[in-house]
């Protein structure tokens, strides 16, 4: 039976989650150098096209058709039998469920780009995004959401700690290793060019996250409402703790640190959103800040140029959130299961299993996938292209063109011949 209230909320939630992808593009674009602004943003924008198409053609079916332990079936491929009638055990149209899940696949695919910005060629990235969205995201989504071995074994993952957060974070690590670092990484200061974008992007991501977590109850019932509220509480606590850590470490609360903290908090609560009480959600906000902060501090000491800290912000915080459920899940709030603190040790075992399996699969599959693509075509731009920037190299545009000295090229060839002033280069 379709429920009007549930459907109305899920329509809105789907749109909220879709906003997260351009928000992520803005966040990432601010973190790179001026000459790579558009390319970085375009990697997220491209995911809107690539991942939507792959999701509709095959990804959705692999993730959500049937309850095979490793992979779903192909019955829903090409959206076969995905119609207006409600999906089994739900109160919203099947096609709306598909669209909501599609927005998750899109933003997750975009997330991985953070590891390879400023040097990866755009064409190979598109190929990678298409294959990754099916071979990594759809498979992990099946494990955690679609009836695969994790969810059927009892692992709790409310809104995507497994496929979205650990899936993107550990894939990002593999991608950074295979593609290699930027040419000047570790030798020159490669600084963010617009911190205002970073803050605005983080704010818009948080806004979208209310649909992401709040919609993952698929109804206007209790789990969704709890998840929605926890999405306010956890990131707020992470943000507070992060500023304190910044002040302790460097005497100043940094703006980029604050933006990062918002993401870390949102990621931390993602798997746990509908399973823990609001007070534990606040504790999670505090706890989640620590390992991610540590990884961000340590990362520049390693040779791996995981450029925009996808591993720290998503992989590590997702890992923290998944494990947190094993301790502090509360049946009184979620109606499903208790964690260790409430006397259920088995829940922690299930969570540990997910926290080991998802990173291993994401890392291994992404590593192999990029090696294969790299054997066919170079993944990296040339040193010269990297020097002049990705925007000019792959898009023929600049983020901030001055327009000075630019000559309009006439569309009619006759004009060029008749008027030598137009034809003559400056």
């Amino acid at each position, binding site marked *: 039976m379709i429920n009007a209230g549930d459907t109305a909320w899920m329509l809105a939630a789907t749109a909220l989650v879709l906003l997260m992808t351009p928000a992520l593009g803005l966040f990432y674009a601010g973190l790179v150098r001026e*000459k790579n602004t558009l390319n970085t943003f375009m990697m997220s924008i491209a995911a809107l096209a690539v991942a939507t198409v792959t999701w509709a053609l095959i990804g959705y079916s692999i993730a959500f058709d049937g309850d095979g332990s490793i992979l779903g079936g192909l019955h829903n491929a090409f959206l076969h039998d995905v119609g207006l009638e409600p999906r089994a055990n739900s109160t919203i149209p099947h096609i709306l469920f598909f669209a909501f899940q599609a927005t998750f696949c899109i933003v997750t695919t975009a997330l991985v780009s953070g590891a390879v910005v400023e040097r990866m060629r755009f064409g190979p990235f598109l190929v990678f995004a298409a294959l990754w969205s099916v071979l990594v995201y759809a498979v992990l989504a099946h494990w955690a959401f679609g009836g695969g071995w994790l969810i059927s074994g009892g692992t709790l993952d409310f809104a995507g700690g497994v496929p979205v957060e650990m899936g993107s974070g550990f894939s990002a690590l593999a991608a950074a290793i295979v593609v290699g670092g930027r040419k*000047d990484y570790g030798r*020159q200061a490669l600084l963010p060019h617009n911190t205002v974008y970073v803050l605005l992007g983080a704010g818009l991501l948080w806004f979208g996250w209310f649909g992401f977590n709040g919609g993952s109850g698929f109804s206007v019932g209790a789990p969704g409402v709890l998840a929605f509220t926890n999405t306010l509480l956890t990131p707020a606590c992470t943000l507070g703790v992060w500023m304190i850590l910044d002040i302790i470490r460097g005497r100043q609360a940094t703006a980029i640190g604050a933006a990062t903290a918002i993401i870390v908090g949102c990621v931390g609560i993602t798997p746990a959103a509908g399973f823990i009480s609001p007070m534990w959600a606040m504790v999670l906000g505090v706890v989640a800040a620590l390992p991610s902060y540590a990884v961000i501090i340590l990362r520049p000491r390693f040779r791996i140029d995981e450029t925009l800290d996808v591993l720290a912000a998503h992989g590590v915080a997702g890992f923290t959130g998944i494990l947190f459920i094993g301790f502090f899940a509360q049946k009184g709030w979620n109606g499903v299961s208790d964690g260790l603190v409430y006397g259920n040790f088995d829940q922690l075992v299930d969570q540990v299993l997910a926290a080991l399996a998802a990173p291993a699969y994401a890392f291994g599959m992404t590593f192999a996938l990029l090696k294969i693509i790299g054997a066919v075509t170079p993944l990296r731009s040339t040193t*010269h292209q990297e*020097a*002049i*920037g990705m925007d*000019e190299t792959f898009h*023929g*545009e*600049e983020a901030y*063109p*001055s327009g*000075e*000295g*630019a*000559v*309009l*090229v006439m*569309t009619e060839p006759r004009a060029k011949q008749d008027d030598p002033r137009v034809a003559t*280069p*400056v």
Partner: protein
Amino acid sequence: MKLVIGIVRPERVNDVLRALYKAEVRGITLTRVQGHGGELERVETYRGMTVQVGMEDKARFEIAVSDEFVDPAIEALCEGGRTGEVGDGKIFVVPLERVVRIRTGEEDNAAVTPVGA
């Protein structure tokens, strides 16, 4: 005393700086400029409007040096700025009439010699 003006590619600025420091040339002014020196036209498209970018972004170094540092400065600019492609830039050397260090009132060679050198 000479004023050495070097116009180089912006993406080579860090290499030029490194070469200048290695040559112990330390008094440097850097400006972002736009210029054109005969390189091939670059074409960009914005919503169907195609433009030839006539002016390329360049970086301009201004380095005031005593006579014995003229050649090291020029060599550093060449070494750091050269890619071999058209558009690597130019170096102009012009005589300096007078130099004053504002802080101390020192003039000429004393003023272009870095503190502590």
